[in-house]
């Protein structure tokens, strides 16, 4: 698929109207969207791995948690 169509697809998925935007700004936006998507995927993968191991959530240990050990 041509790069321009891939850009249109990425911008449409993010709800951004590309008409009138400068090509340099479009390139920058598309890369930002890709970075955001990659971060989201990493976060989802992390949560999936945690749930597979039976971990519901990860939070900072408190003094009470140490005392309860």
């Amino acid at each position, binding site marked *: 698929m041509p*790069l*321009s169509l891939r850009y249109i697809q990425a911008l449409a998925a993010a709800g951004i109207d590309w008409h009138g935007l*400068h*090509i*340099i*700004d479009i390139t920058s936006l598309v890369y930002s969207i890709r970075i955001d998507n990659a971060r989201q995927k990493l976060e989802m993968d992390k949560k999936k791995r945690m749930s597979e191991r039976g971990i519901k959530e990860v939070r900072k240990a408190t003094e009470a948690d140490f005392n309860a050990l």
Partner: protein
Amino acid sequence: MKITLPIKSKDEIKDGKRILAYGEKEFELDMSLNCQMRWESKFPEQAGKEDLISYTQRIHTVLETQKNLNKLTAPFMISMFKTIYCYFDTDLTFVQFLKLFDFSSLEYTGQLINKIKEVFEVISSEASEKNS
């Protein structure tokens, strides 16, 4: 945005003499995603290897660092014209576009290259501040 380039308005042989006249032509500068689409449709082979923004930046860097504009090579000149051609909203083919310009006069070519340099500067400066 409109941009004017010096073109040859007349180029003919009359009574064995070459008659050459210069004029100006206005072009509509289109810096939207359409220029990448033009890049892909007019120069598919190159578009497969590099996007228009990278190509533009590469050509612009050479143009900025080259002190003596008369020393620019023919392949580089063609690359430069290819780039600006994609930013112009025009029905002309690339060959028709090239035929608008005269490369036989050093003075005219110098003026033309300086104008093209301005086009490159406009292209880069029109993006948002953080991206330009």
